[in-house]
């Protein structure tokens, strides 16, 4: 957020953004579930140019043993960016940003899981950003949610996440990379629609309380749309099999 640099225009006079979207439009999203054979649950997301993979191992025995909790499962989460995921190669060692994001993502998913149902176990969640394009933490929560559901881990609700912010004076939904870097504010949110519960909320930039409320509400709307996409993705594989079977039966 550098006021002295050559100003990049993020939104033009007609309200169109650098990637052709209007202020309240999500980027194109592709979701796939159950794509890794070793993990207990897995999923993949493409959102704009973001490419993020999530995998779950668990519930399983906790290693090291002394970390086990007597009355619930331990959720461990690792958000990590591949060295080739960004313009300038990123060192594979966990950065402070990755440490913080691993924590906030875990805290967004913990309230969704019935951890008490499998005490003394661990649920290990891995989120790998293969290509980053702004909004990786929210896309990470979205795809991790699907990996957890794919693993058959008992959940209160899916967690959908989305960010909104301010760019060139407009309140916009789902910031892309350049809007994230050059915009005025970024508000990532993770939400469980059935429970009307927010599990992740951050903000950086400058917003009046009124602007914040606008951005926050816009992000919630984005979350609700993403939630519907998540449900569809989970059912897809099974519906496809059902359809194929029914077609084959009809052909007889």
């Amino acid at each position, binding site marked *: *957020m*550098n006021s*002295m640099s050559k100003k990049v225009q993020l939104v033009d006079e007609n309200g169109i953004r650098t990637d052709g979207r209007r202020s309240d439009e999500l980027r194109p999203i592709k979701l796939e579930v159950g794509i890794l054979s070793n993990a207990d649950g897995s999923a993949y997301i493409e959102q704009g140019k973001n490419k993020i993979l999530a995998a779950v191992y668990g519930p399983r025995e906790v290693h090291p043993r002394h970390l086990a909790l007597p009355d619930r499962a331990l959720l461990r989460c690792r958000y990590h960016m591949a060295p080739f995921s960004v313009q300038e190669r990123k060192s594979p060692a966990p950065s*402070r*940003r990755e*440490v*913080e994001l*691993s*924590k*906030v993502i875990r*805290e967004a998913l*913990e*309230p969704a899981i019935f951890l008490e149902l499998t005490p003394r176990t661990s649920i290990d969640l891995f989120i790998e950003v293969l290509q980053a394009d702004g909004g990786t933490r929210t896309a990470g929560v979205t795809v991790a949610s699907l990996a957890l559901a794919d693993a058959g881990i008992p959940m209160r609700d899916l967690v959908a996440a989305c960010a909104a912010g301010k760019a060139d004076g407009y309140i916009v939904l789902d910031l892309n990379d350049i809007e994230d870097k050059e915009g005025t504010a970024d*508000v990532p949110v993770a939400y*469980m629609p059935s*429970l*009307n*519960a*927010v*599990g*992740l*909320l*951050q*903000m*950086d*930039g*400058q*917003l*009046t*309380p009124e602007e*914040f*409320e606008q951005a*926050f*509400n816009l992000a*919630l709307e984005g979350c609700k749309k993403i939630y519907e996409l998540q449900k569809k993705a989970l059912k897809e594989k099974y519906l496809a099999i059902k359809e194929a079977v029914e077609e084959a039966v009809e052909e007889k």
Partner: protein
Amino acid sequence: MTSTTISRIRQKQIARLIAGGKRLDGRGLTDYRPIQIVTGIIEKAEGSARVRLGKTEVMAGVKIDIGEPFSDRPNEGVLTTNAEFVPLASPEFEAGPPGEDSVELARVVDRGIRESKAIDLEKLCIIPGKKVFVVFVDIYVLNHDGNLIDASALAALAALANTKIFKYEIKDGEVEIKPGFEKLPLVNFPVAVTLADIGGTLIVDPGLDEEEVMNARLTISFDKDGKICAMQKGGSGTLSPQQIIEAVKIAKEKSEELRKLVVKDYAAA
């Protein structure tokens, strides 16, 4: 009982009191504990401050060095914030590299300062693209009795307000230190306010016992013009959208109270 795990009886006691609008130490739901700020206590640091928030005690030290700017911001000084959860501060703190809590705290405090543009980083440029002032803010937690974020943000701000940079002269492309000092160019005063949700009720400035029982917390940083410059939800629970909007309103008011404690010192110095 040395374990910091809170007993069930205590949990129930806290929940009952809060449902009735009161807290363990008799505070109101939106009251801060008594705050004491002392500045300039570490003479070898360019700036320093110690904050006592109830029994929570945090120190912040500012060191200034000369270094290279970031390649994408050649005309700006560099700010870097670090936090250490010193082992003597709590039986729960272990020696070793920073854990996720201290990394999160440092980054949230840094965000408040950075996004509010509190430090005029351009004024810290010495030779564009080559030499700039690097401002190291180090937060040192000395006693953990809850709400380390607000105490740390306050300590960092007070330390920055207290910071003096040496005067210099450029001779043949080298920086020569001259006698005398200048105040660090501070143009904004970000303040963090943390609220916790216990049983659906929001309270300001959670103490350690309250943190053990809380569902979730929300930290909101405001600048001197009432703009939000940082937010961070923490904890394994959730907040409703309505609670979040309410928290913003409460936090804005409280931030003005806290800011007064630092600003009057700054103006006077």
